[in-house]
């Protein structure tokens, strides 16, 4: 029997463009990952984590920004 640990992949949308964020560190929790990338993408600070969706042999987490338009 072969057991594979699925890779984690984090999807983030910026300006309508999908950015695939690779797993920075397997030891990180999802919240850690979010925090880690929040330095680069400030929008992630308040993002919701959706998933994981298991697709193409990966666990895909989606960061969904809750930032909306004001007014």
């Amino acid at each position, binding site marked *: 029997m072969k057991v594979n640990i699925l890779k984690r992949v984090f999807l983030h949308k*910026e*300006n309508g463009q999908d950015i*695939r*964020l690779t797993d*920075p*560190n397997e*030891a990180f929790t999802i919240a850690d990952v979010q925090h880690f*990338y929040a*330095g680069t993408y400030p929008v992630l600070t308040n993002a919701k984590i959706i998933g994981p969706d298991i697709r193409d042999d990966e666990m895909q987490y989606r960061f969904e920004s809750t930032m909306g338009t004001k007014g």
Partner: protein
Amino acid sequence: MKTNFFQQIAGLGFNGNYLLNIHQDETGVQTVSVVLKKEKAVTGLPPMIFKATAEELDERFFEELAKPVQQTVGLITNIESYQKELEKAKKNAKPDKDKTAKAIATEQDEDDKEDENNLFTPPEDDKQAKAEKKRLYDETMEKVKELAQHTKYAEALANLPDVADYPDKAEAIEAKRKNLQAGKEAYDKLTASFND
């Protein structure tokens, strides 16, 4: 204490923002993400991730970083010059009279794409002829298929398009020919055994 970290960055040759994020965990492993940003020239570049101990990072970090950064610089220069050229072209552009004709031609060309082997787009004039040729080929193949379905293998073989006319379809034609030949032989055998 003297380090050459910033001089190394200067040596990479990228002008813009470096977004570095360094995370140190309790096991002594550092996770570093690097993103290059330059106005709006490139958006959506994913971060590069480096994960190693501090010593390893000291040794290898810039070695590993140099290549992707250079590639990014190349990309940005490309995009910038492309945008300049694009604007130039926009200024020089004249309204196109046969726009609709062109649109149709490109549409047909898209259909062609799946069996087009060459990477280069043929000249505009070629497109119409090519589409016509493709239509003819499709029609013939359709006819052959129909004939084969009615077990008229000999006729189908005779109707098969000439490889010389469609060099890019040679493989498909040859495969069809073999298929038909096999069908014909089987059918002939069957009729022969019936007649016996």
